[in-house]
Each structure stands twice: as C-alpha cells, then as structure tokens.
C-alpha cells in the first residue's frame, strides 16, 4: 500500500507532495530511532532543561533526557497508534460494512442503529472512562480508539456494497452460482479496498490526535512516551509558564504533532480526490 501511495504521489499537487515527504521523514525517524538519536530516550543524559544546541540538538527535559531522542521514539508510538488503530478500525468496520450491506435485514438494522449511536456519542468522555477503567496500556489505547473509528469505514463499505450489489455483473455472477466468498474476493473487496485504504490515512490522523489528547490528560501509556505525553509532562511542570523552557520542551513535540497531522490530512485529501472526484472539493 505504501508503494501505491508513493506511486500515486507523482500525481499529487504541491501540498500533497509536501505531506507525503513529511510522513516519509517521520517514518524514517521512527524506524531509525536507535541510530539517529545520539542520546538514550529514557534515561538522563545531561543536565536538566538545557536549551537546544550543544550536545542536545533540541535540548533536554526536567530529568535531563534528550528531547530529540524522545521525539524520535515518540514518532514510533504515534505511528503505531495511528496505523494500528486505522488498521483495526478498517478491518472491523469493513467487516461490519460487508455483513451489513451484503446481508441486509436485521444485522443491517442493528449495525445501522449502532452507527447512529456512535455518531452522536461524544467520543472523548467515553474514551476517558474506558482508559481509566481498563488501564493505560498502548494496546488498550489502540483498542479504545479503534472502537470509535470503525464507524467511518463501516459506512463507506456498506454504501459501496449496497451500490455494487445492485450492479448487473454481480447478479449475473450469482446466476452462475457464485458464492459469497467468490463475490467478496472477486468483486466486492477490489471495489471497496481503495476507498477504505484512503479512509485509513484519515483515521490514523484522527487516532494520533486522539492519542495525543488522552496522553495530554495523563491517560497515555506511561511506558511508551508519545509526543502527547511529552506535552503532558511539560505542561505539568510547575514553572513552565514563567520560564523559557516551553520554547523547546513544549514547542518541538507540539510542532511534530501539528506537522504530522496536517501532512496526513493533505495526503488523504489528495487521495480522496483521486479515488472519488466527487469528494474532492
């Protein structure tokens, strides 16, 4: 899929290309984190709260841990949460969409009602409650986020399946005795896949933001320090408002998040336009 995106990238507009470049850089930073961070990301490697420059390109936090290293490793967490959630949501939502769209009848009714509820439900309070009760492990967070992300792929898949189901080539395939699995593999999935794939990019953006939000509240996984958690620590530091520390401690994770989220949005916007010209406004 990544290859496909990169290939499609040639047709991107300038903002789309920029977004793609940013994501590739973040991806590289996450993969190569152990090699490109000079200092360890979890133990102190210098005096606390050193401004950028010298041995610490982005400075250190209150425990003297190198910020650059934290950002590199944080990228791993953010990407893992983003793409993990998106994958889980797309699989689950896609399955529900297929079942709901293909079977119709009462399963469809049940799922549609569920989707209606999920849409109006305020997601963050529910996530907080779930995170508070189930504990803040990374896996739990991904699971909770996915619980609130499956609605979009499910809706997309369902409407697409409903549309495709009415096409005559499906009907003729059925008259030849094609089974559900054949139809799924040969007709439905190829039709639905590009849409879901594009939607996954958008979902990962949302998941990354949501994870950052939870971490900011202190509900993140304390063992894997994401960008949101760095912000959480920075804002919880008593003197942050009255000193210049925020100029690196807070600013860099903040910038990383913003740039990442905007890049993902630009890419998905671009892809949406390519997959479905009607969406591209």
């Amino acid at each position, binding site marked *: 899929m990544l290859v496909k995106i990169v290939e499609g990238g040639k047709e991107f507009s300038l903002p789309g290309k920029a977004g793609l470049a940013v994501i590739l850089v973040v991806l590289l930073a996450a993969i190569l984190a152990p090699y490109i961070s000079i200092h360890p990301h979890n133990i102190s490697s210098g005096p606390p709260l050193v401004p950028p420059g010298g041995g610490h390109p982005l400075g250190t936090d209150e425990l003297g841990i190198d910020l650059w290293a934290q950002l590199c490793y944080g990228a791993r967490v953010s990407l893992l949460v983003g793409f993990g959630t998106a994958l889980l949501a797309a699989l689950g939502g896609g399955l529900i969409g297929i079942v709901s769209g293909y079977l119709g009848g009462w399963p469809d009714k049940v799922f549609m009602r569920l989707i209606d509820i999920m849409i109006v439900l305020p997601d963050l*309070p529910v996530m907080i409650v779930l995170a508070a009760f189930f504990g803040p492990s990374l896996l739990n967070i991904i699971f909770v986020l996915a619980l609130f992300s499956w609605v979009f792929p499910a809706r997309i898949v369902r409407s697409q399946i409903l549309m495709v189901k009415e096409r005559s080539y499906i009907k003729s395939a059925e008259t030849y005795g094609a089974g559900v699995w054949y139809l799924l593999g040969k007709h439905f999935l190829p039709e639905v896949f590009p849409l879901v794939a594009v939607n996954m990019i958008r979902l990962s953006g949302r998941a990354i933001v949501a994870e950052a939000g939870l971490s900011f509240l202190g509900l993140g996984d304390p063992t894997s320090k994401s960008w949101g958690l760095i912000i959480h620590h920075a804002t919880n530091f008593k003197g942050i408002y009255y000193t210049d520390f925020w100029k690196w401690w807070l600013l860099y994770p903040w910038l990383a998040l913003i740039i990442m989220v905007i890049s993902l949005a630009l890419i998905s916007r671009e892809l949406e336009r390519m997959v479905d010209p009607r969406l591209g406004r």
Partner: protein
Amino acid sequence: MEYLFTIWVLVTLNFFLPRAMPGDPFLYLSADEGQEVARFSEEQRQYYLEYYGLDRPVAGQYLSYLADLLRGDLGYSLYYNEPVSAIILRRLPWTTFLVMAAVLLSTVSGTILGSLSAWYREKLLDKLLFFHLILLSEVPAFLLGLVLLFTFAAGLGLFPLSGAITHFASYSSWWEKLLDILHHAFLPVMALTIARLGGMYLLSRNSMTTVLEKDYLRTAWAKGLPQKRIIFRHALRNALLPIVTRVFLSLGSLVGGAILVENVFAYPGLGHLMREAVMVHDYPLVQGIFLVVTICVLLANFLADLVYRKLDPRIGDYSGIRGG
C-alpha cells in the same frame, strides 16, 4: 424512541464498566513512568465496595443502580466529600458556557466565511480562505489552546493563565464581574472556535456553492428580487440545512475538544473535573460526569431533530437527518 434506547445503552454500559475491569479494580493507577501502586486508602476501598455493592447479585445491583439514577443520585465523591450530582451541577455551567460560545461563534463566522467564499468562488478571497482554513481545520483544539496560552497568556500576559474567574476578587458591579469572566473565557473559547472554524467553513462553502447553482436561485434572480433577499431568504435558508445538522452532530467531538481545552487552561468545567477525578480514582465522579455529558449531547441531538423539522418542510414524520 431512538434516544431513550441510546440513553439506556449508555446507562447500562456505565453500570457494567467498573465490574468488567480486569483484575483488582482498585489496583490500577495511571502514575508516572509505569509504576503500579495501590494508593487507595482503606476508607476508599470500603466505600467503593459498598457503593458498587459488589457483594450482592448483579441483577439486584443493576436495579438499585437504576433506581438511584432516577432519583438523580449519582453517588458520593469521597475525594471532594460531596454528592457527585452537586459537584457536577456546580461545574456544568462553565462547560456549557464554553461549548455554547464556541458553537455560536464558529458556526456564525464559519457560515459567513464559507458563504463569502462560495459567492466569490475562484476569486482571490476564496482561494486564500480555502487554503488557510483547510490547514486550520486539521489542528486539534487543545494544541491550538496551548499556542494561545503560551503566546497571549504566558508570553504577552494579556490573559489570565488559568481559571474561569479571578479568585477572591470583589467586583464593584455585575458587569465588571462579567468582564472578568469573559476575560478568562476568551482564550479557551477562541481555541475551540478556531479549531472548529475550518470544518464549518468547508461545509458552508460546499453547501452554499451547491445552492447557488440550483434552479430555484435562477428563478429568484429572474423575479428581480433585491440581492439581499436572494442571499438570505433563498440561498442561505437552504444552505443552512446541512449546517444545522452538522452543528449538532459534531457536538460530541466539540465536547471532547472542550474537555481537553479546559485542561489546557485549567478551566473549572466538567472536563477539568473529570481529569482530576480520574487522577484521584474517584470513580463515581468519573462515571457521573460521563453520564451527564453524554446525556446532554444526546438531548441536544434530539433538539436538533425538532429544529430541523421546522426548517425543512420536506422532512415529514420520519427522522431523515442522519441518512448519509
């Protein structure tokens, strides 16, 4: 009734959640750097056991829970030493105020900007607005709030750093108090408004563009009506329909944003309270807030259905606003 059903689902979920907790429910704690320490006092432990009635059969627990809810009893907060409902009632207005102000401001300004963009489509103004607002629409509110906080409050000192009102202040008149409140609320409201502005702008731009190309608008032009009437009575009236739907549908995510933003600005609303409650493991309070917030959002959506029916004569007795 769809909404009652949803509320019932929520209430039940709320009942079973603490009971579905893995392991010892009182052991978990979100502390720093992965330490899991039981910080419950014996007193807390006793109360929770009693409150949740874990020694009784589940059916009985459920029934008494429902009965308590109907009486408005959400439990007792040990940490604050007060009934949960009383604490929530005290904090609710602040959150409501933030959310309402943000909804109002972002909807009005988003609609105006979006309509302007549609009216001057493909002109310079449209292109500028579109480019900037599309970027802005992706930035989450709490990250925006942080920027605002550090530039305007911490950096320039134009606004207070935290709170909703100056503590221990004495006001000479009611409007001075109002001014103080607005002063405190300005940045949080701005953060929420700006974060939502992009979405509202895009929606109203789309909606307006579609409406402007409709046959009935050409009819209106042909009738030689004043431009003002065409824009407001004919175009905007129709363009508003999807906007109204969106305002209410996105209320849930706006509340989520407000919870985060309140924590950025230490604004004493429900969001801030919720975090405090989570931190001190005041579960009845967490659950109470959760119920109140979700039910409020559901009620708002119910209102939206009614409003929508008034606005669009085509909607009959079925609720058609949540189709696609």
